[in-house]
């Protein structure tokens, strides 16, 4: 650590996030390292260190001979200010080496509102922002993560994208780079060879042409690049690499615990959910492997809490077997087992009671819509009866806190649907009055509404977003219909969700907007302390880009979509069919009741879809 940094650390908040040196951090002898990768997470240490994807790929790359992957996070504002004042370029935690001196610079992107952080981090590192400005083989910037299923807004800045799950493809990519560096390839040669790796998308190999009305006319592959790039998946999760030696942060992070993925993909098909479609097909880990990895991780890390995560935990077939085994281990070893994303079914209710430890957490539901009609439209198979039965159970068991999450602005939504939320909440309160074991403590119902953001690769990818004004009108309408003091209602401000809608479905014309916003100080947009809507609005204006084009306009079904060259396994025909069913109010039963033919099983060769 430099003397300069020693002097800065006492002046910033939470200095331990900038020092590295945590338990299980990987150190290597630089003399033995042929390729080093600066693995950047475009948000703060506390968020990035909680990210399971980053944890996995850090392990994958460091398992490779001659490769050293090091972590980089976005500094908080106070540290950034000090770095700029003292001319300290962004560095990697493991060795303290400047990011600009790395061979490869990787980003994992899970949230649209971190796009400015990517540019700000490159800028802090002293790395040219635009891919075309980086001429050499070094400073090769690549990115993956769920947002890169529409990579176009970042096409100007990122040399190539690694689409889908990275356990295998990252090894192929870094190995190719190793060879390129040894043989002295040019950047162009490397990109050309990289584009032959399945799952690799090189944006500069695609020319975008527009119609006079501004819609996309054509996407032309160049240099023999494939017309579509299909995301990568790991077929057999039991055999996939999983790091049971995780870095244990020395300071508190957001998810300060061990974490295990039960399965990938989702059988549910909620029509608004990007993960639900883009992470298919469904592949499970066996309970035996999970139990072994859980014990290994807990023993190695010393954590006293573990989460079993997935998109819909109740759909894991081995859940009973696994939780029975895990519970007895966890009780013996004073470990908290947390099982989020449970559905409101009978088994889950029993499990919830079993898991109930000293701390009684709240009960959370995400009905998303207030009426059964609208829940059918979005294919959210959660009924009022299920919610109320679970509430009744919980209230008689002593729970006195419920959280309910909804969206406003869903396709076909009317005021009746909005008021349906108030009605449902009212019924929850009545249920409490009937079943509460201790009424003296009162009931708290937290209701939150989000502003619906249509996402790529979902049946709603063509939908209009309602205007911010209309969204706020619906929020106020709802607010006026809550009469009970037990209800606390929060609604998201529309600004961020509007920008999310722009960036989620954006095309290459957004590149200059993001660059302009970042240049004017937009950063840490996901944080209230820093988010500045005006900077973004000014950037749209300066670049002559109309945000409404991406939000309230809606996309035509026959329109070429910016993300059409990206194949996530689920076909466009299926999405169109689902969209039609949504408008007809017809649900599509979950995959366990029969395959709905989304097409994602086409990605599998060795195993069957576990739906």
């Amino acid at each position, binding site marked *: *650590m430099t003397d300069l940094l*020693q*002097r800065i*650390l*006492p002046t910033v908040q*939470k*200095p*331990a996030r*900038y*020092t*590295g*040196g*945590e*338990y299980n951090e990987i150190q290597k002898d630089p003399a033995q390292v042929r390729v080093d990768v600066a693995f950047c997470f475009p948000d703060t240490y506390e968020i990035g260190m909680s990210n399971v994807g980053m944890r996995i790929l850090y392990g994958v790359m460091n398992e490779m001979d001659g490769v050293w992957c090091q972590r980089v996070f976005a500094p908080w504002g106070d540290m950034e200010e000090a770095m700029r004042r003292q001319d300290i370029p962004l560095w990697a935690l493991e060795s303290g080496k400047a990011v600009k001196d790395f061979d490869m610079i990787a980003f994992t992107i899970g949230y649209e509102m971190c796009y400015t952080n990517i540019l700000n981090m490159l800028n802090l590192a002293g790395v040219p922002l635009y891919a075309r400005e980086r001429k050499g083989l070094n400073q090769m910037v690549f990115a993956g993560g769920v947002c890169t299923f529409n990579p176009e807004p970042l096409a100007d800045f990122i040399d190539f994208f690694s689409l889908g799950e990275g356990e295998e493809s990252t090894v192929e990519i870094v190995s190719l780079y190793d060879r390129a560096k040894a043989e002295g390839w040019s950047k162009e040669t490397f990109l050309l060879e990289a584009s032959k790796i399945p799952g690799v998308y090189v944006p500069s190999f695609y020319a975008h042409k527009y119609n006079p009305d501004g819609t996309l006319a054509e996407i032309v592959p160049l240099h023999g690049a494939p017309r579509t790039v299909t995301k990568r998946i790991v077929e057999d999760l039991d055999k996939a690499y999983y790091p049971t030696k995780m870095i*244990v942060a*020395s*300071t*508190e992070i957001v998810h300060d615990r061990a974490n295990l993925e039960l399965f990938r993909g989702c059988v549910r098909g909620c029509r608004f959910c990007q993960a639900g479609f883009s992470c298919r097909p469904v592949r499970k880990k066996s309970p035996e492997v999970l139990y072994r990895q859980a014990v290994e991780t807990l*023993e*190695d*890390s*010393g*954590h*006293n809490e573990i989460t079993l995560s997935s998109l819909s935990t109740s759909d894991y077939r081995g859940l009973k077997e696994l939780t029975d085994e895990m519970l007895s281990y966890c009780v013996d070893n*004073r470990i908290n087992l947390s099982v989020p994303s449970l559905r409101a079914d009978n088994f889950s209710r029993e499990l919830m009671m079993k898991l109930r430890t*000293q*701390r009684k957490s709240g009960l959370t539901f995400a009905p998303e819509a207030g009426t059964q009609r609208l829940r059918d439209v979005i294919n959210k198979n959660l009924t009022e009866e299920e919610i109320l039965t679970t509430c009744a159970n919980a209230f008689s068991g002593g729970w006195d806190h419920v959280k309910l999450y909804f969206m406003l602005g869903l396709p076909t939504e009317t005021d009746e649907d909005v008021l349906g939320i108030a009605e449902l909440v009212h019924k929850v309160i009545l249920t409490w009055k009937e079943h509460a074991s201790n009424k003296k403590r009162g009931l708290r119902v937290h209701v939150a509404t989000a502003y619906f953001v249509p996402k790529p690769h979902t049946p709603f990818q063509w939908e209009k977003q309602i205007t911010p004004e209309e969204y706020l009108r619906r929020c106020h309408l709802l607010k006026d219909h809550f009469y009970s003091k037990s209800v606390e209602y929060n609604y998201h401000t529309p600004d961020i969700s509007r920008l999310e809608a722009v960036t989620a479905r954006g095309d290459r014309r957004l590149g200059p907007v993001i660059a302009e916003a970042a240049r004017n100080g937009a950063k840490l947009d996901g944080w209230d302390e820093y988010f500045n809507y005006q900077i973004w609005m000014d950037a749209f204006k300066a670049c002559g880009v109309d945000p409404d084009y991406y939000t309230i306009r809606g996309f035509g079904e026959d329109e070429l979509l910016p993300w059409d060259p990206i194949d996530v396994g689920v076909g466009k025909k299926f999405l169109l069919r689902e969209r039609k069913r949504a408008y007809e109010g017809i649900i599509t039963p979950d995959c366990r009741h029969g395959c709905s033919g989304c097409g994602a099983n086409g990605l599998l060769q060795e195993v069957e879809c576990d739906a």
Partner: protein
Amino acid sequence: MLRLLFEKKGRAVWISHLDLMRLFQRAFKRAELPLTHTQGFNPRPSVSIALPLSVGVESSCELLDFTLEGAEVPCQEICRRLNEKLVEGIRVLQVYEDGRKLKDLRLLSCRVTLEYDNGVPSGAPEAVSALFARQELLVEKRTKNNGMKEQNIIPMIRSLQVEAGEKHLVLNALVYCQNPTLNPALLVSAIEGYLPELTPSFSHCARLEIYDEQEQVFR
């Protein structure tokens, strides 16, 4: 109850007190040394650190009290097993039974380094020595409810020597660390307040050793 003596140096000095407690709890778990837990509504592993250390201060004399569940493990083995599972900069020096009562811990030997990038101003060592020879030095101290309070720090300094280098001054001080407590950083505040021309470019502190009232090393 057992006690361990540990040092906190290098990158680890930036770990806060609460984070350090968590870090030790995990290290015990990794070392398969189960801690007993507090009774009550929200059981917590029973570890406590004698004198919370400010972030950024290094120390070679930290004490941590703990109790283990289950079969007895020899002290030396506890020491070895913990050191295998700790992070860089935190090292257990000694584990022992029958530690003295913490209320007898009174004095702390510390080293405060004041760095002057343009060289130590002439006459600085003498001026600083004279300053701490006064009867009264009022320094503002943050109180628990976030207010500020003036406090005379002289009665809390048992001895203080000034050592001068080319670009730094070192204060070797023996100060009270319990009833009352003097944060060594206030020695710098005193210089900055009374001798503003001697405000250093940068300063840092280190804890060297702890003693009882009679200046016997405290364990």
